[in-house]
């Protein structure tokens, strides 16, 4: 049974059907890329998995549990981590506080602080800036913080929405390298990425969304070689 499964999902957003009849899955330990043009429904799909919007039809399940009746917080407790587009770190709060908030679902504050220390070890740049206001970090540092924040809850599935957007190439490589490392430690990844080449280089499988509908999907290697994908996304 796949870790994440969407079957026949419709999502309406502000009166518009943003996603229609979408079925996809992410297996244990996989990296799966979700590709598509702007407005294809990628972020909306992630929002529905996280419970921020509700599908009007279809079923979403994580680890076999139907997510329909669960609050976003309950979905986090169930093992979904979501690093939203634009990083959305908590400005005005320190780096350390941002990380601690990633562990809000844990009641034990000491355990949270242990995990914060572990993430700081993984991402030393955050350790250096622990006491700094998160809003003063560079874009790349904010991205690392947003990922670190999501890791504190030890998600089984990590969803990343455009994690390299706006980053310098070197920083983008660092971020994608981190994603790979996280995956190797056993976390499944659903990766929404504008840079299709990099995403398909990292992922085992990929799905292409176009205007809310599922288009091509399959092996990352096959998609990379597909002429239609090359024309549309790899240029």
């Amino acid at each position: 049974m796949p870790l994440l499964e969407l079957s026949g999902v419709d999502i309406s957003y502000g009166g518009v059907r943003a996603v229609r009849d979408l079925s996809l899955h992410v297996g244990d330990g996989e990296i799966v890329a979700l590709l598509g043009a702007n407005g294809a429904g990628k972020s909306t799909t992630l929002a529905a998995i996280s419970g921020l919007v509700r599908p009007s039809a279809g079923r979403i399940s994580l680890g076999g549990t139907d997510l329909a009746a669960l609050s976003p917080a309950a979905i986090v407790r169930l093992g979904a981590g979501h690093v939203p587009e634009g990083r959305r770190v908590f400005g005005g709060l320190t780096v350390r506080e941002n990380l601690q908030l990633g562990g809000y679902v844990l009641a034990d504050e000491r355990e949270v602080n242990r995990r914060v220390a572990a993430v700081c070890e993984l991402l030393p740049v955050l350790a250096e800036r622990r006491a700094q206001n998160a809003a003063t970090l560079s874009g790349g540092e904010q991205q690392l913080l947003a990922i670190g924040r999501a890791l504190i809850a030890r998600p089984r599935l990590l969803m990343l929405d455009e994690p390299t957007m706006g980053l310098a190439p070197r920083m983008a490589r660092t971020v994608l390298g981190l994603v790979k490392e996280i995956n190797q430690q056993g976390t499944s990844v659903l990766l929404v990425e504008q840079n299709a080449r990099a995403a398909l280089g990292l992922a085992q499988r990929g799905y292409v969304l176009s205007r809310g509908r599922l288009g091509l999907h399959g092996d990352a290697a096959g998609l990379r070689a597909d002429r239609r994908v090359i024309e549309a996304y790899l240029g």
Partner: protein
Amino acid sequence: MSQLIWNGLFTGSFYALVALGYSMVYGIIRLLNFAHGDVYMLGAFIGYYCLTLLSGVTSGLPALLIVLVVAMLATGLAGVGIERLAYRPLRQAPRLAVLITAVGVSFSLEYGVRLIAGADPKVYPVRLDGQPVELLGARLTAEQLVLVAVAFVLMGALHTLVMRTRAGRAMRAIAADPKAAHLSGIEVGQVIARVFFLGSALAGAAGVMAGAYYGRIEFLMGFVIGLKAFTAAVIGGIGNLPGAMLGGLALGLLESFGTGLTGGEWRDVFAFGCLIVFLVARPQGILGEKAVVRM
């Protein structure tokens, strides 16, 4: 001179207590809760009835402190109820709808209390007119000193809670980015309810203190103080808690000096003149930054 400072600090600490709730609620759900002043009035009335009940048992300052705690709990719960019934169903609605609802809640509280307690002003069954002592040229009573101290302790406790605890961290996170707060596993609705509890409890405390200080309460007493607290929150920087405390105290002092110079009938002119000056010259307030740090 020092009498003016003392009077200003005293009323300023009421303003600050009420302004804190105003500012917290604005910070977390961007709502100007126009019913907040009426929660203060509710606190004063709950205090009135509790004091009347207690009158045979104990009186004076001890009674007042017990009643303060009871009134804080009751108004805190009332705040949670108001949020639950009136604001939560409108979480996705346009902001204007919520604002108008807040005005509706304000009227409901005012005329609800009028229905139960009547329209006539009530004499508060406890007064803080013990032996006045001279302190640095100001005449004040020990009871007044204790109440101001209690107000400052409450403000300090709130500040610690918001800045140092897990719950406070969650409040600041929601103020900064509600969507990211959801994704971090914060039960946003629950935290908002807590904010209403705290803000309303502080307003309730201020209501009891004001009843004891002025000696007279009536069902419309929350209206002007609501506007004053709003003014204080704007002066300090709305959404900013130290700003709300500072704004409340500053407003109290300004009013006190203003009336000292020109007479009591000019008091509100000073307060709302300040509001206009700030809105024109520094709309983000003393401590507010332009949409960066909230709460």
